[in-house]
Structure formats: structure tokens, C-alpha cells
């Protein structure tokens, strides 16, 4: 027999989700103007396409480029991009839920960290790419 403390229909997936991503935003508040829901949804989809593009580019850099003079250069560029894409794919779902919750409760939208994270990682990768492409450091 399984003990289900989180509610009659709370599966393990739902419990994991609530732990990391917060509760389903539809649990509280009132239905907002659908235009805001749609815009929130499109923002999520846009972040996920960005994530997919980052993953694709990272994979292409590590697998398709000829090796640089600098050992491990391709991985130094590609792996952070793939990691960023993976984080964004899930973090954007969390942002969507937080935004939807704020819309339903009539509160100000929470501040998103996704833009800052993306800017920092892409900036660092750019610097790494500069070093690798110039062939500095090693031969």
C-alpha cells in the first residue's frame, strides 16, 4: 500500500514539481485577462526555443568544429552553452508559474533572473571563445 500524504491524487511527479517549481498557479486567485496568460505562455515558449538553440549550438561546437590549438577549447565553449540551455528549459517553467500566480492574485510580477543568467553565461562564453579563437595561452 502506498501512503499518499500530499492529497488524494498527488502523484510523485506532482510532489517533485511542487517541491522545485511551486504549486500549480491555478490553485489560487482568479482567471486573469487572457491576453496576459497568452503573453506569459509565449514568453515561456520563447525561452524554451532559446534553450533549444543554445543546446544545439553547444553540441555543434563540441562535435562539428575542427579542434582549436588550445586543448579542450571546443568543450570550454560548448559545454557552458549546453548547460545554460538545460537550466533555462526548466527555469523558464518556474518563471511561467510564478508570473501566472502573480497575475491571478493581482500582484506585481516577480523579477526574473533568466535574463541576467543568460547574459552572464553568454558573456563569459564569449570571452572564452575570444581566447580560444585567438589561440592564446597554449600552443
Amino acid at each position, binding site marked *: 500500500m502506498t501512503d499518499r500524504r500530499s492529497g488524494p491524487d498527488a502523484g510523485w511527479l506532482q510532489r517533485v514539481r511542487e517541491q522545485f517549481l511551486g504549486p500549480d498557479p491555478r490553485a489560487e486567485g482568479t482567471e486573469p485577462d487572457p*491576453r496576459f496568460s497568452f503573453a506569459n505562455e509565449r514568453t515561456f515558449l520563447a525561452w524554451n526555443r532559446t534553450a*533549444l538553440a543554445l543546446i544545439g549550438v553547444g553540441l555543434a561546437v563540441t562535435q562539428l568544429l575542427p579542434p582549436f590549438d588550445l586543448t579542450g577549447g571546443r568543450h570550454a565553449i560548448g559545454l557552458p552553452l549546453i548547460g545554460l540551455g538545460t537550466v533555462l528549459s526548466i527555469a523558464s517553467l518556474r518563471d511561467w508559474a510564478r508570473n501566472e500566480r502573480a497575475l491571478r492574485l493581482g500582484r506585481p510580477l516577480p523579477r526574473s533572473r533568466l535574463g541576467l543568467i543568460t547574459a552572464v553565461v553568454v558573456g563569459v562564453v564569449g570571452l572564452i571563445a575570444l581566447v580560444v579563437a585567438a589561440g592564446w595561452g597554449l600552443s
Partner: protein
Amino acid sequence: VTEDGDPEATGDGTGGREGDRDGAGDGGRDRELGRAATPRPDAGAGRELAGAAARTSLAWRRSGLALVACGFAIARGFTHVGVPAQPAVGVIVLAVGLGLWLLANAAARRWDRLAVGERPAATYRELAVVAGATGIAGVVAFAVAVSR
């Protein structure tokens, strides 16, 4: 990436009606003031809402196609440069993308028959499928990139 769907963009769906102070802007201002957002758009905002729904539908289709392309690349591999094909993983990602695309098309047709304002936004679960597919692709890509 900034998406094109600013909910407060002026759609001019009111046809120059006099005293149009109840347009899209009020929802945002109400939010700033801590009041509840406009529960239902008025008739003047109908065209704008239809545009928002159409943009959202297109965004779903685009996302589906992106996953299809990604899945195809994973399944096929780049054997000429030594990247092996991963048919099982690729087919899963491709199938999710194709499913999204088909569902988005079906949803768009269903939405067309609904009155503006009755169109349902996505549920948590639907978005979680997209995030999960992208996340799985990312983890697989990371594993492939580390191991080679």
C-alpha cells in the same frame, strides 16, 4: 529573446471610439496598483485578444518544429564527422515536437470556433512537457559532449 506579444501593445481595435479609457492599459495599471487585473476584456479589445491567441498558437507551432528539427538531427547524427546517430533519443524528441505541432494546429482550429475570451490558456502540464523535452535534449547533449 523578447517575444512579440506585449499584452499592452495598442491594437487599435476600438475603431476610434470616443472615451476609450478601458483598453489594454488598464490591466497593467491595475496590477501596478495592486488591484486585480481586468477579469475579461471588453469588446474593444477583442481583436487584440484574437491577435494574442494567434501569436501564441504560432509560437507553439514554432516550438514544435524546433523540437522536430532537433530530434531529426539527434536521430540522424553527423556520421561524416564522427557523431553517431542516436535514433531512440532522436525519435522521442522528434515525436514530442510533432505532437506539439499537431496539437497546436488542432487547438487553433478549436479556438476559431470559440468566442474570444473563452480560449483556454495552457496548463502547467502542457508547458511541463515542452520544458521536459528540451531538458532531456540538453542532458543528452551534455552527456554526448562530455564523452567525446
